[in-house]
């Protein structure tokens, strides 16, 4: 090579390789830890008719949604019933306590089809909070509504579940 080009070649070597290394280190250090096989709580099985309905609310969204909480023997159950299958990709459903930085508990992924059911953890019924649906694809919450403190059904009322 002629000398001026050799100089430029040298300059590129000492600028571009280190720059590439810096970007690589930056990228590697910012890696989000997204598990490919997420250990999400499994969907609730069983007949949705079981348990005692203790809370119900229509949520004005598109498609419209009815949220219900049932009391069961073991734990409470949250049911989200859309009128049609919602267009939410990768929806994750959380319960979040009210307050500045209220704890967030992952209930599980939105199931395919219009209906999803989840265990509602004890904290979720003893404290006022809200239900948040977070879309992984969009990286933001796509739906949120309040879930007040839910009273326990009377012992007699809970008799519906075996």
């Amino acid at each position, binding site marked *: 090579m002629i*000398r001026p080009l050799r100089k430029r070649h*040298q300059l590129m070597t000492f600028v*571009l390789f280190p720059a590439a*290394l810096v*970007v*690589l280190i930056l990228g590697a250090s*910012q890696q989000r830890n997204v598990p490919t096989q997420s250990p999400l709580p499994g969907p609730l099985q069983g007949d949705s008719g079981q348990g005692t309905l203790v809370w119900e609310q229509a949520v004005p969204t598109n498609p419209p949604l009815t949220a219900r909480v049932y009391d069961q023997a073991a734990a409470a159950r949250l049911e989200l019933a859309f009128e049609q299958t919602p267009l939410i990709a990768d929806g994750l459903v959380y319960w979040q306590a009210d307050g500045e930085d209220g704890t967030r508990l992952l209930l599980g992924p939105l199931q395919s089809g219009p209906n999803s059911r989840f265990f509602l953890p004890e904290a979720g019924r003893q404290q006022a909070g809200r239900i948040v649906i977070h879309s992984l694809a969009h990286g933001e919450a796509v739906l949120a509504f309040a879930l007040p403190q839910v009273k326990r059904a009377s012992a007699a009322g809970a008799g519906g579940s075996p």
Partner: protein
Amino acid sequence: MSLAYQAVGWNRQKKVYDGWLAVGILLYLAVFMVLGAVLFPSITAETLLIRGFGTASFVLLHVILYIGPAARLFPRLLPLLYNRRHMGVSMFVLGLAHGVLALIQYHVGGDQFPLVSLLTSNGDYASVVNFPFQLLGFLALGILFLMAATSHDFWLANLTAPVWKALHMLVYVAYALLVAHVALGYLQNHAAPVTTALLGLGVLGLFGLHAAAALREGATDKEAEADNGWVYVARVDEILENRARMICAAGERIAVFKYEGKVSAVSNVCQHQNGPLGEGKIVDGCITCPWHGYQYRPKDGASPPPFTEKIPTFRAKVTEGKIYVDPKPLPPGTEVEPALIQGEGVA
């Protein structure tokens, strides 16, 4: 070499080289697809193809960039350099296949023209995690296209070697863009410690080799001092038969060859791609470029007929076993009587 268009000049060596290249690429793709399908059955064929082509291209780019400085430091690897441009064109074709498939997979089916979608769908330039990394791949592909399109000797002759070489040096920009393409794209979506480590080693290794070669070149580029119009080169016994010593004088390198009891000095710059003639040797009585084998006669710097390349020559003399050259270049093709070692005469 004339400016008239010439088809690629094929010879046996090139065919063998290209044969191995094709076998290597096909083998890589086959192993990648089979392993991918067996180990990750949930991955679709499209994704496997995108990744297969993308990684094949990127691996080949590493090979291409390793060969240059490695051949500089270890001349035994020079045969690999001989037909490197076919590696480059293959690398571009693989990268193009990857880019086009990715464009189809991720940008067709929206309400925008796919290329517009690629260029505008993500404007998150301040983010590391969400950086529009596909744009980086697109820019790199543009550079690789320019290089592949001008790879033929027709363009080399038309643009002149220095301009052509400067254009093809953009490969380092493309490389940096592609490292960023992977670091800000694939690595953000897949926790991949092994891939990250491999890529880090790849970049570090390339940097190390290039830096070592550059430092060595820098030493040769120290300007030699002229004394009474003559520059000292070396003692006669320091140069091997049919080999050269390079010095830098009057701003450019001079290659001083010793052969058949004689010494001749010519410009170090090959007319083809400006390869370093002083790192070549004399074969069949002609200085032979180590890069692609262009030949020049030592006494007048002209290629043997039917070729017409000519390089500048220099006057040389041998006194008391020491070789000197006059750093004033003579017009390309000027015949200079070689300096005789026994007689120690001035040419």
